[in-house]
């Protein structure tokens, strides 16, 4: 049992880690674009903003259980398989990208417009404003956004167990639910709880360290 729990925990961590990585890579820039193209952004573009907004809202409104199944063909193309933790990274990232993008957008909105104006008065380019002003100034908020996203991904990753997605959720369903083994059920729940607590604690600590307001 211990072997199985260790393997499953590592699978969960790998799944969450990789999904979080892709989420930052795609969701971060998407969030910046959502912010920048808005009416009060540094590069207003109403049509683009509306299109991005609709895409993000669609991504966020599809329940994960359905999304996971619906994009199986896409998952096969990207991951080369539809089962196991490698395959689960695809739907997890797809679900988390729009979620994280919205959180990034709201973290950026919190930046004092006066600071942005000061940068404009210095002759900053828009890319300079994003890289040197918006991101450094909203870093604690961005770290908090990432923490919330990682915790959400961890929860979703357990759901991926329903379609043989690997990790602790998979273990809980196969041994705890289908074989009525309460020990597995309790152990997986406790492990998930510990993992989430660690992520949240680390995220809070990092955000506090970065925040000098």
């Amino acid at each position: 049992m211990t072997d199985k729990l260790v393997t499953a925990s590592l699978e969960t961590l790998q799944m969450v880690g990789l999904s979080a990585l892709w989420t930052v890579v795609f969701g971060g820039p998407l969030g910046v674009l959502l912010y920048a193209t808005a009416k009060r952004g540094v590069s207003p573009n109403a049509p683009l903003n509306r299109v991005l907004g609709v895409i993000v809202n669609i991504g966020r409104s599809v329940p994960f259980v359905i999304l996971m199944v619906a994009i199986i063909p896409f998952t096969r193309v990207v991951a080369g398989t539809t089962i196991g933790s490698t395959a689960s990274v695809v739907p997890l990232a797809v679900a988390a990208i729009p979620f994280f993008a919205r959180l990034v957008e709201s973290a950026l909105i919190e930046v004092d417009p006066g600071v942005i104006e000061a940068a404009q008065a210095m002759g900053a380019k828009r890319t300079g404003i994003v890289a040197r002003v918006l991101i450094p100034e909203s870093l604690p908020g961005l770290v908090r956004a990432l923490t919330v996203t990682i915790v959400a991904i961890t929860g979703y990753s357990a759901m991926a167990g329903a379609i043989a997605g690997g990790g602790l959720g998979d273990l809980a369903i196969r041994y705890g639910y289908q074989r009525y083994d309460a020990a597995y059920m309790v152990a997986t729940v406790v492990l998930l709880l510990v993992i989430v607590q660690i992520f949240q604690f680390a995220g809070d600590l990092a955000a506090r360290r970065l925040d000098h307001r």
Partner: protein
Amino acid sequence: MITLSEVSKIFDSTVAVDNVTLDVPDGHIHGVLGRSGAGKSTLLRTVNLLERPDSGSVSVGGRDLGALSAAELRAARTRIGMVFQHFHLLHNRTVAANVALPLRLHGVPAAERDARVAELLELVGLSDHAAKHPSQLSGGQRQRVAIARALAPRPEVLLSDEATSALDSDTTGEILELLVRLRDTLGLTILLITHELDVVTRICDSASIMEEGRIVEQGPVDALLGDPDSILAQRARRVSQQVLGVGRA
């Protein structure tokens, strides 16, 4: 150095700046005095085109800013420093990183940047605070960081948007002295806006009084104070009467 000619700016249906003409010679400190809502802030923001005038022209150092491309305007803005009432510093960066910001934005190499930052912090008397964050400083110290930041690219002009309005009177005095010293040592031309009469009478060479978007009085401060009928002299008299407690029924 700064020439505004017949500048107007209209927001929806209200005329924020109404046909303003203003000339600030090299090395002068010019103050625009007026109540809040008089259009001073909008006027100041037309000087670096943060606000594009609807009509009229703005030139700084002999260059017509309205005629510049986006890239040329960004370059021109490095010649024009700006400080604000609420400082607008980056909270999450150190004092040194804040001062370095304009240099970083314009790709100045790290070694040169560090040397310049050290020089600027020395100039404003904050060398010991380089590694602190703005929240650890007093209001006056924060404004000095903002001034150092504005001066980093060696501008010829400094725009001051109510720079002392959030400060107590002693700190205001220190900041005003610093501005005069910078004008004297660096040859800066300073255009400031304020609602405090005191700022104008203490450090300005010339002044404009602004009401409802229009300039209603303009001239050298000495001449205005010497003319008993001028608005500036009348206001100065009223203030001193209040201080002395005379002129009351």
